[in-house]
């Protein structure tokens, strides 16, 4: 979530560069609304039920039993947040796509605490124009 709010800070720069920022998450829209009430974002959070779209990107993975129990002990209820029972998550990723739909940059890492700076994404967008 820290990453989303860091991207919020550069959203006007993204728009100035002629691009649109959008987030994709397995959580149900109601959960996104709940989150946005606490701290708004001015870009869309799209719900990817069952991580089906993440699967087409090759980013969906299972959360295995022992980790399910640990998440449970933290009060994390994935079936409730995601509205389904698959116990899957996407690998955190940031993808820059040009207007013809070609991926021009991707930063994905199984460790959600290893994320590129927003400034890197602005540089990726500027490189599209160049």
């Amino acid at each position, binding site marked *: 979530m820290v990453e*989303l709010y860091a991207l919020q800070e550069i959203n006007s720069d993204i728009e100035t560069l002629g691009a*649109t920022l959008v987030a994709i998450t397995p959580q149900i829209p109601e959960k996104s609304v709940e989150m946005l009430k606490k701290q708004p974002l001015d870009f869309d*959070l799209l719900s990817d039920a069952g991580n089906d779209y993440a699967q087409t990107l*090759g980013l969906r993975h299972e959360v295995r039993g022992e980790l399910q129990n640990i998440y449970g002990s933290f009060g994390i209820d994935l079936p409730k947040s995601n509205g389904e029972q698959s116990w899957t998550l996407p690998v955190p990723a*940031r993808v820059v*796509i*040009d207007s013809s739909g070609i991926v021009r940059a991707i930063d994905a890492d199984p460790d959600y605490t290893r994320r590129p700076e927003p400034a890197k994404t602005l540089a990726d967008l500027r490189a*599209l124009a160049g």
Partner: protein
Amino acid sequence: MTLETKLAEIRDASATRIPPEKREVMLAETAALRDTGIIKKAIQVGDQLPPFSLENQDGDMVSSVALLNQGAVVLTVFRGHW
């Protein structure tokens, strides 16, 4: 403050707040996922983005085609707010 500063704070906090036996499992699961080669098998630079049409927080459908008609897109894949 950079994003990395904030992420480093999260790493430090989890190292002190999460019991070691749980943290060990979490780190091992992340490493196991990395070892599957998922990142190399996932979408790569030069690939065409598969199309999507997904519901936003307001219940409206948003498609990749509509977004790309307006220009470039930055897509961030987010696990969720727990």
